[in-house]
């Protein structure tokens, strides 16, 4: 099946060097079938899959039941936070009901400009949602890991209702000038190593990258 695609595309564009298939927007890649999934940089129209970006066609056959057709653009890749992405954000303002954040990184990609994020009180913790206090979870200036759950009209709605999500880097509120990050001493507390002040936070259980990868697959 995929051999056929490769052949067809190579015929139409005439470049088959180094076994890479280069495609441009509007180029027909293959027919829509049950076992083919429309991936990044492609769109479906009239029973066919077309490329919507310039780049290299990538056919992912890692799963046996289906194939993912996607186009990878070399060089600069445009990233916009999408639903389900893990983002890194800085807390800007906290109110009793929500915390406003500035998203500056999506997955491992640093963004050019920050996007607005909104973390509501109900989405801070998985359990005991009614007992959550935003003031006891975040402070302005904290760096948090969060998951995008929705895109509202004005901003992205974030959630930290997972053990791995929450505050990663935080500074004690009175010793800000020293810029010594606090050390987590529990799932809801952080301590400054210099002054030994303890402050409540919704701490993220940061895992090494390798273990996250194994979780995902």
């Amino acid at each position: 099946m995929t051999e056929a695609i490769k052949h067809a595309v190579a015929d139409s564009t005439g470049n088959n060097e180094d076994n890479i298939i280069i495609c441009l927007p509007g180029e027909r890649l293959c027919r829509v079938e049950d076992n083919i999934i429309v991936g990044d940089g492609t769109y479906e129209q009239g029973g066919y899959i077309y490329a919507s970006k310039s780049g290299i066609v990538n056919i992912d056959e890692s799963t046996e039941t289906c194939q993912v057709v996607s186009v990878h653009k070399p060089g600069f890749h445009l990233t916009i936070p999408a639903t389900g992405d893990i983002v890194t954000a800085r807390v800007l303002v906290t109110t009793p009901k929500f915390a406003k954040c500035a998203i500056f990184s999506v997955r491992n990609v640093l963004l050019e400009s920050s996007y607005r994020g909104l973390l509501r009180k109900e989405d801070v913790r998985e359990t005991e949602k009614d007992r959550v206090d935003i003031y006891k979870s975040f402070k302005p200036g904290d760096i948090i890991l969060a998951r995008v759950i929705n895109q509202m009209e004005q901003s992205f709605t974030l959630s930290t209702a997972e053990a791995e999500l929450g505050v990663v880097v935080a500074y004690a509120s009175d010793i800000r000038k020293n810029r010594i990050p606090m050390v987590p001493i529990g799932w809801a507390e952080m301590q400054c190593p210099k002054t030994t002040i303890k402050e409540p936070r919704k701490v993220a259980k940061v895992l090494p990258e390798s273990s996250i990868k194994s979780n995902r697959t």
Partner: protein
Amino acid sequence: MLRVTQTKNTLLDGATIDSQLYTTPQDCEDFFESIEKPTTVVAAPRPTFIRVGVLTTVRGSAYMEYGNTKVMAIVAPPRELIRSNVRRVNMGVINCYVNFAAFASDDLEAVPEREKHLSSMLTKALQPLVCRNEFVNFQLDIRVLILDDDGCLLSTAINCCGVALIECGISTYDLITASTACIYRDHVFVNPTAKVEELLWQHRAGNALLGSSSKSKEEKEEQKDVQQHGLLIIASMETFEQLAQCQQCGYLKPETYVQLLDFTLEINKSLRQLIKRVLTERVKEQHVLDMREKQLEHQEDQRLAAIIEKLQQQGLHEFIQSNIKEDPYTAK
């Protein structure tokens, strides 16, 4: 002497229309004489130069020379909509800003109006091209700088923006190409120069003066076959055979219209080939760079891995000593 016959139209209920709306004005005569008139129509683009990624500070940029017309386009990554101009749409918003360089135009008074006009036309041309559903609640700013104007401004700007959008990695449904053709007194101008465009621009409102030969009634009957003059700008997307934009001004018969349309589509086709080649080269170039970067990263990883292994094998002290010897600064 001017003479405007006013015909009564029952449908218009007393209002009148000018019967000689589409005749060519007299004062353009001399101007027309000075223009080089093509003998045969060659539906081919002008000598074209396109360079992708001319600016390193912006992600998507393209520079295009179409004959003497020089245009630069810049596309910035999507920004969030500002609260004040939020319209309730489920699509991304495209904003185009066209600017003339200070030295591009002699007629400085007309510049703001032309900039405005070009911006809105360009926005309309690009709207069907971009997959706007992919950045809902975002706005995409496209800036165009015109460095030199020798006709076909809008079509060149559309071509240039299309390339810049793809370079920026914004999803588009297709490649877009545009071209201009016009007719004036049975002379078909393909890719009209600034002079020809100016000539046609004077007729745009249709309030032209009477022709010199229409003095008696019999002659007027013959004049039914009025001279055609008109300008046609076509932007097309070929995969689905769609027209992204069609701008027309002047007076054209349907047959002429079709003829001009065919010319523009022909040019669009050859421009598309060129743009395809340029973009494919660009992808290859980027791919090679990516591979090199990956290789360097891999080498760095290997180097670090070797160091760590060494560190584990030898004692720490010994390792530091051996490393100091390798340091070029201490060697000096």
